[in-house]
């Protein structure tokens, strides 16, 4: 559940930045979200990826479904040489995810550099999670 917050923040910032910044602002959104919440590097990549993947994928899926995949059929044939809307939607989500993951990683590494001790909170939470799991 606690992973939900950085994801939500990333999604929110992705939308907000997209209103006035180009498409690559998805990386910036994840970067700021992970930095602000001081997420550790590897989780930051995974969470950034997951958030952006879901955001771009979900958004695209919604648009394409309401379009009955008319454009996705044509564009997948043009871009991928293969008439498969799901592949194009997947590719869109993957590009968003990759940019989000990398952006998240950058944010996290940046915070780790200027505040070397900041990941302790996250660290202890993860530890307690592990402990919780082992206890059960």
């Amino acid at each position, binding site marked *: 559940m606690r992973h939900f917050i950085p994801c939500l923040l990333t999604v929110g910032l992705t*939308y907000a930045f*997209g209103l006035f910044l*180009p*498409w*690559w602002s*998805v*990386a910036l959104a994840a970067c700021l979200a992970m930095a602000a919440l001081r997420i550790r*590097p590897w989780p930051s990549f995974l969470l950034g990826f997951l958030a952006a993947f879901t955001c*771009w994928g979900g*958004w*695209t899926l919604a*648009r*394409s479904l*309401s*379009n*009955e995949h*008319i*454009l*996705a*059929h*044509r*564009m997948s*044939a*043009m*871009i991928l040489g293969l*008439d498969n809307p799901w592949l*194009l939607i997947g*590719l*869109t989500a993957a*590009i*968003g995810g*990759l*940019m989000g993951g*990398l*952006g998240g*990683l*950058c944010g996290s*590494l*940046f915070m*780790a*550099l200027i505040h*070397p001790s900041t990941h302790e909170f996250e660290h202890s939470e993860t530890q307690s999670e592990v402990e919780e799991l082992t206890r059960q």
Partner: protein
Amino acid sequence: MRILLLILAIAVTTTLAYLLDSRSLLPVPLGRLLSPQEGLWQNAEPVATAPNAALSFPSLKGKVDVYFDERLVPHVFAEEEQDAYFVQGWLHARYRLWQMEFQTLAAAGRISEVVGAKAVDYDRNMRRMGMGYAAENALRMIEADPDTRAACDRYTAGVNEYISSLDVASLPIEYKLLGYRPERWTNLKTALFTKAMTNDLAGYDRDFEYTRALSLLGEENFRLLYPDVSDSLSPVIPAGVAYPQPLAPLKVPADADSAYFRRRDTSLPIPTFKPDPANGSNNWAVAGSRTASGAPILANDPHLRLSLPSIWFEMQIHTPAFNAYGVSFPGIPGIVIGFNEDIAFGFTNAGRDVRDYYEIRFRDDLRNAYWFNGGWKPAESRIEEIRVRGSQPVLDTVPYTVFGPVIYDKSHPGKASDGKAYALRWVAHDPSNILRMWYLLNRARHYDDYLAAIRYFNVPGQNMLFASRSGDIALWQQANFPLRWKGQGLFLMPGQDSSYMWQGFIPTEENPHVVNPPQGYISSANQRPADTTYPYFIPGTYEVYRGIIINRRLAAMPSVTPEDMMRLQNDNYNLFAEYARPVLLKHVQPARLSKSAAYYLRLLEEWNLTNDPSEKGATIFSAWWDSLQHVVYTDELNAYGKPLIRPDRFVLLEALLRDSSHRFLDDIRTPQQEDAAQCVTKALLLAAPMLDSLEATEHLAWGRFKNTTVYHLLREAAKPFARPGLPIGGGVNIINATTHEHGPSWRMVVQMSNPIEAYAVYPGGQDGNPGSRHYDRFVSDWAAGKYYRLWFMQKEESQDTRVKSRMSFKP
């Protein structure tokens, strides 16, 4: 260590962002293109939504209501006439912006700005042809007329209001794919659009090809291969109409025989980027005396290269001054083919030659003075700057002479040239305001209004068909057609003095025309307009067979209904084959045929002479006849090491019908004498392997073989935007003139009854966006020969259930 990791992460992220934002690694900027916020997904229009909006523009004078029906046809009701043009411009831009800009960029020779260096030759050819010069001349006339000026100004304002409402996300998808942005619309672009149409319809000529053929083949062979008139002509103007004799005979230059007809010149440029000579059309009108309802019926189907988005946009425009329905050209104001409450109008191409070339002698390589009427005359220069995406601009200085722009010279030689210079004389360069014709036609009520309107049309020559609710039918072949002495302009002409210049134009009132003929119908199908009793020399590119079959069908039809007319537009009967098959069957030597050739012969004998999609005989006939033309002519046409133009289809048929010892039958490369039997048999034997491979892949049926395809304007670059493999019959010389990628771009049947009953369809859809369900909405119905009943909406019908959505435009 940590800082290195950070630097690495930032480097990877920015590199990836850069690569996905540019065309340096991938052909398209995939990140930008796939972004759900600004990329192509924004063009995926929700299927369920219809356009509803309330918009406000301070420049409007009154209110405009737009009602969209189920097919996304807008019915525009404007309180003020000028506002209607504003809204038409806005709607054209909303649904067809990319296409209208692309087509006018093409007309201006500016495609290199979008696609880069590969279009420079194309652009240069358009500049050399004087397209920009022609459009500027037209624009001066358009803007000198207060009515057309106001219409264009308001239209342009509407387009630009739409353009300025666009952001990165809402750009049409082609801009995103090609990576550029629309520029402002101007009245000049509207003029350029009319010149693009003019070039498509009156830009085809064979002057260079004919000159080369005359030089190589000699006069007698030339006349046999490229005759002026077909034996079986069924002219637009019914035979028997008496023509007044011209007042003064034309002055033939004294040296015409030596310097013109016996000129021998074979090192000529080979023109490129020629328009398709098949650009033509059918139209016919049936008088009330022959219709079931007693009201005239007008039918029109213009044949053009089929494209998505379609060249046409269907709409109704209602203003206090007029109420017209039909198709418009995205790019110009008004309704182009259609009807209003009183009249209907349609067009076919006249195919008349309105372009000639003059050989120019420049003083020196500076090309700023040329020899004319005994002295050096200064040439004006127009410097054409072709901006090229991704590289340096190309500059071309085009000299202008008294004849027109110098299209070929040392610096722009076409494919092969002797470095001589040729100037182009083309009616399209002459100042004119053809928009005024549509402005007046849209509000015309009677024959006299129509007559007054068409006078403004100088080019491309059109057969302008008219039918009125008051019961008149009429057709005028209208344009400024040059007065020519016999033979003038078939070949390149000397340009060192004025003796070979056109000596004026045929007086408009002597243009071929027919009003309420006793036979009760009028038709035109790009054939020669009049028989040889017409007292002027009128060369052109003419069709022969569609006109004959249309007249035969109309003459046999009692009490005509709109349904009859729709069936006629979809008629796949092959009249050419009706004439030509007996010739093949008469001469073929069955004993010499291979087993498979004998099989095709049998299929051809059993064929019903109809080019329906399932007919194999149609494919066999087409392949056999093409092969026969190849067998008969290739030896002569290739004998000189220079390509010669293939004669028209009717030439060989009529030669064989007249005389089975036609002189070209002999293969000049062999010692023995070939005859018709040998040629016809050999032709089938040569065609058989190709037919075998078609049969083996199940492509022998005509529809599969022809593979009718509506391409996107970007053609191969946007193949998934095309509609290939349409199950439709027809073909060359057939009323349903649908070939592989060419054919009826709009089919319309209008019965001028009360109320008007109209049907139409076109192979496209109202929305140019490939992400809209309206993009290719009508294509399948068009291929199946179906029509839509047009709704000529009345003002009080705004609450009708046929209204699916609405927009309002207010000041």
